[in-house]
């Protein structure tokens, strides 16, 4: 049975990665699970300089999901290089650094640094809904995505995956922008912009008022978008949004994802990603699938 996949030039032992912002830089989870068992780790969104993030409350639970407005708090790429990368290198799993910036120049400068590191790929975050400048501002249009991605592409030799926002009318447009700019893959979806109100205080629950919705609640939206992108672009897809089981992962793969990420599921239980790896294998056994690659994008539409 073969579970290995090639995502955008990154050869992974299985299609299971963990999503940016839900797994830190791996350290906290290494206490609970064997990181060698997962295909890859998408790191916490990392910027050129440290970012302190948004005011609390930053998280709020919603039906089968949660809103967050962390605001990309991270220690910066230099800290990552010195402290987290050496730790991650101890494991046999692919390291995909989620890169975020507030301006095109910042994305490019960061990409130059990342190009010199011993990492397996870069996930370009053009989709965080919680910061005022950058990120989602570039990610909603074909032109915006194409412009940032082309400039990063010029300085980055490593596999480049562009993470897309679902907060658009047509998800195919930004995906095509990434493809036309020379990205090796796209990952989708980031969180859906949402809001929840405390009816007793008559104010939003989050200090930042709005935040990104994640968790099982968003899975059908994510599956639909992965399918639509798969029908329209040729580069591979890293699919995510509410995956907590092997069955969930298989849905994304059938819709067209080459690999998947477990995100909010990591908060429910520290071993969710391992359960997803095992669940995929069980499904393959049950249906006599010898190679996971044989079922990518094979959903038969009604």
């Amino acid at each position, binding site marked *: 049975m073969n579970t290995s996949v090639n995502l955008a030039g990154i050869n992974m032992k299985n299609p299971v990665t963990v999503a940016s912002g839900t797994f830190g830089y791996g350290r906290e989870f290494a206490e609970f699970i064997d990181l060698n068992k997962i295909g890859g780790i998408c790191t916490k969104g990392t910027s050129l300089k440290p970012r302190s993030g948004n005011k*609390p409350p930053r998280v709020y639970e919603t039906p089968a999901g949660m809103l967050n407005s962390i605001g990309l708090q991270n220690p910066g790429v230099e800290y990552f290089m010195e402290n987290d990368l050496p730790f991650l290198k101890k494991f046999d799993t692919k390291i995909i650094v989620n890169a975020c910036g507030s301006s095109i120049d910042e994305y490019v400068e960061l990409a130059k640094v990342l190009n010199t590191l011993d990492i397996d790929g870069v996930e370009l975050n053009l989709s965080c809904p919680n910061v005022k400048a950058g990120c989602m501002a570039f990610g909603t249009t074909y032109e915006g995505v194409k412009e940032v991605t082309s400039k990063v592409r010029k300085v980055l030799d490593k596999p480049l995956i562009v993470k897309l926002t679902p907060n658009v009318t047509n998800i195919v447009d930004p995906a095509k922008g990434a493809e036309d700019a020379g990205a090796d893959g796209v990952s989708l979806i980031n969180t859906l912009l949402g809001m929840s109100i405390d009816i007793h205080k008559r104010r939003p629950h989050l200090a930042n008022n709005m935040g990104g919705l994640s968790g099982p609640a968003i899975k059908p939206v994510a599956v639909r978008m992965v399918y639509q992108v798969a029908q329209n672009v040729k580069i591979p897809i890293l699919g995510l949004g509410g995956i907590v089981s092997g069955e969930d992962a298989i849905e994304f793969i059938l819709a067209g994802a080459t690999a998947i990420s477990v995100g909010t599921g990591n*908060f429910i239980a520290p071993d969710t990603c391992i359960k997803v790896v095992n669940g995929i294998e069980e499904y393959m056994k049950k249906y006599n699938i010898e190679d996971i690659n044989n079922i990518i994008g094979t959903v038969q539409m009604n």
Partner: protein
Amino acid sequence: MKVNIKAKIIKKEKLKDDIYKFEVQAKEIVNSAQAGQFIEIRVLDNIQPLLRRPISIYNINKERGTLEFIFQVKGKGTNILAKREIGEELDIIGPLGYGTFEVKDYEKVAIIGGGIGIFPLYELSKELKNNTTTKINMYLGFRNKEYVLLEEEFKNVSDKLIITTDDGTYKIKGFAIDELKKDIEKEKIDKIFACGPLPMLKAVQDLAKEKNIQCEISLEEKMACGLGVCLGCAVKTASSSKEAPQYWHVCKAGPVFNANDVEI
């Protein structure tokens, strides 16, 4: 060391209509748990409610290998938790938090708590009483007589126990902080420990600063993971400027902080 275990409920007590005490078998957590730490409970093996509930540890029972925790029913999650029964297993991660109460020999300490925040102070006081030479003044504030809970237990782990009620239906009418203020004028207190509602913690923080007394406060903030990765449970650092705020995280630097380190 943090572990994720299935912990059998061996005792369940309804202390009040909306306050429950559970005792669970949790040898693996008990082994390393310290005063001030908390656990994250998945109330059901389900995606609804999605997140775990962070709950403070009330008592670490090393001999029995059990943990006791007390919680108030406030929403969906705690409502379901309150319906879990003896013999069932709870999915628990713990012990969590790196900032813990500092248990060592002091001359005399003041432990002050309010509302549901009094319960995490029991383990602290118990350890100080059993393992150190510290004299312990304890100040507990409750809503009313009905909500004065575990008085005997707190009495057994302190040298002086002062109880206040907001409405005066039991013992002293008023706030615990006012009783602490009075005593600080008369007695030499070399450390304050506090857990409770924010206005109380702010008052304690101000008092400790004014009197130049060391002070540890236990904080809470909405959190998702409890492990230090979601970065949800942010609390402002004391050195923060308005233009460039900096944050600690309750599950990582806390839940117990040196009062001088945080802006609350």
